[in-house]
């Protein structure tokens, strides 16, 4: 199929918006001091321990960190889908001006799928193995009140087309197992955007895929973001993906956000020792001269996190103060590099200029602890 036809198909399933206008505007999602814990026999696992972050329309914000840092727990909390024994114990999830945590279950159900959609790592969990993909899409459209009957079928084909499934009309009849992993993930994304959501939360959407399919899926998400002003919260542990596809990134460690800001700042000038450590773990393609350095030790047990800075036991720059006093997430003053970059106008386009860091090495500018 030609690019033009696909582009048209995309237009028919998206709402026209002033993308640029919305990107500059208020966040569609603002998470404030969110806390979620799991009550286990060993004690309380503080999986999400007071995180704050926001996503604007037309913006991709990445949430990164090692396994067990609380990324998925944060995403599930936003959707109010935390499984027992987990529960949300505090904070706010402001979506389009209303606190999702204050909504009734019925109201929340109307938000899910229609206004916020979720894409998981394993597409099979999101698809019914016994139903043809076309039927699943039609059903999704019907339950969301978007379309019925013939109109729904046409919309479904347009959606499959929009996510780049060749011969979409024929693929409507395929069962999930008859599709490749990449095609299945496209179907899941088609279902996610069927209700024209404002926000998509994608939890490791490409981790199970080959690089070529990964690139296709990430390009698709980027296109939806750019063309229809979708807001994306992208959870991944792949810093290359973050660098290539996110506008801003929040680095999570042991349930907390320890660094947050424009992706260019994170990659070119990571201020937080944990962010620096993560970047130094990644082998650079075609740069055998750049050695990799593992971070020693492992993520702490969140039943009894270390006192003071949670990263202190693994931090090569830890000071005595770090083991006693928990640092606060503070807004950072511009550096020589960010000033130069901003004068070139680059970061205004991608992720703004504000960066926050939780580290005693960077006391920052005054109180903004968020």
């Amino acid at each position: 199929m030609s690019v033009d036809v696909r582009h048209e198909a995309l237009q028919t399933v998206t709402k026209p918006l002033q993308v640029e206008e919305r990107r500059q505007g208020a966040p569609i999602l603002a998470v404030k001091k969110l806390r979620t814990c799991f009550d286990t026999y060993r004690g309380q696992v503080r999986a999400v321990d007071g995180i704050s972050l926001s996503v604007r329309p037309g913006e991709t914000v990445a949430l990164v960190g090692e396994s067990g840092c609380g990324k998925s727990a944060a995403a599930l909390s936003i959707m109010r889908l935390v499984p027992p024994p987990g529960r949300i114990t505090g904070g706010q999830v402001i979506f389009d001006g209303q606190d999702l945590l204050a909504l009734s279950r019925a109201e929340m159900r109307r938000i899910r799928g229609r206004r916020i959609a979720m894409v998981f790592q394993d597409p099979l969990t999101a698809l019914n193995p016994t139903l043809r993909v076309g039927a699943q899409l039609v059903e999704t459209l019907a339950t969301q009140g978007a379309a019925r009957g013939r109109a729904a079928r046409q919309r479904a084909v347009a959606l499959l087309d929009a996510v780049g499934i060749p011969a979409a009309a024929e693929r409507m009849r395929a069962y999930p197992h008859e599709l490749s992993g990449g095609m299945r993930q496209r179907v899941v994304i088609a279902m996610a955007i069927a209700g024209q959501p404002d926000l998509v939360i994608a939890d490791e959407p490409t981790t199970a895929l080959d690089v070529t399919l990964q690139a296709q899926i990430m390009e698709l998400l980027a296109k939806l973001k750019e063309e229809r002003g979708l807001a994306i919260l992208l959870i991944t542990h792949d810093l290359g993906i973050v660098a290539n596809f996110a506008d801003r990134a929040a680095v999570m460690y042991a349930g907390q956000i320890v660094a947050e800001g424009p992706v260019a700042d994170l990659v070119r000038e990571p201020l937080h020792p944990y962010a620096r450590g993560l970047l130094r773990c990644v082998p650079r393609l075609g740069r055998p001269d750049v050695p990799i350095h593992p971070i020693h030790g492992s993520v702490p047990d969140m039943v009894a996190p270390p006192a003071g800075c949670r990263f202190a036991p693994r931090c090569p720059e830890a000071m005595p103060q770090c083991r006693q006093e928990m640092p606060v997430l503070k807004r950072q003053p511009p550096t020589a590099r960010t000033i130069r970059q901003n004068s070139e106008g680059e970061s205004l386009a991608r992720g703004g200029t504000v960066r926050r860091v939780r580290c005693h090495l960077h006391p920052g500018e005054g109180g903004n602890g968020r």
Partner: protein
Amino acid sequence: MIADGVLIEVRDLARHFAAGHGRVVRAVDGLSFDIARGETLGLVGESGCGKSTLGRLIARLEEPTRGQVLFDGVDLTALPPAKLRPLRPRIQVIFQDPYASLNPHKTVRQIVGLPLRVRGGRANGQVRERVLELIGMVGLDPEHAGRFPHQFSGGQRQRIGIARALAAGPELIIADEPVASLDVSIQAQILQVLRELQQRLGLTLLFISHDLSVVSHISHRVAVMYLGKIVEIGPAQSVIQEPRHPYTRALLAATPRLEPGARRSTPLAGDVPSPMAVPPGCRFHTRCPLAITEECRRTESPLRELAPGHRAACHLA
């Protein structure tokens, strides 16, 4: 450091699987290459292209449909089981899922000690000493020796797997996606351990991964596989910096880089064809972004040397 001499010679090696209804999966479809002694050869390619099958064929865990694997000049494929057995410890495999390959009822001491006892020639005290030495080499503590696999993290289990492989005294280690399921920080630890051991012990390493960044980091040479065949092979830097095959270029373009905003050109379209229906002519022609010629549809290009030690199988390269 790469010592002289060839350790592994693979000659027109193929493994086809029967898939019912008379169909045949051409998992490994006739390929030839060498691995030098003391060298790390990285093997990349998309899921299902035959990397693991090739690794298993070289380790002689799989019967070839045709072709030979010469290990130190000896044709492994022609050896009867009795003659093969003494060679087995010299080739060790490390798997992606370390947990599945470790006996849950044995302690680390027993797991790592077993290959030593099988090899024989060591008193009990010497075995115990060597076990501690080995687990130290892979960065575990002596106090870990008495623990069971479930008491370890994924990265630590992979270290146990490496220690067990080393205990057999191998010359060749085949590492099949050894870091694929691990966090970046743990991945970096394991890569460092493997690289150090390879250099210190002069091991020969076949490192299988779908991640070109990881492969390029650890390998002296890189081989790129597509649908059962090697389409490009050469010195790592040469393959990464000056890829000759359109498929290698596509893989490189799709690999995320730590450069903000570095968005690649259009990603490779479509899926890999089924290994049950390998396209005729050049097997990449159904996805090739180059202006393919009549010849591409008709004949398959052999691997041709295009730069010193750098070969690619493309009519237009």
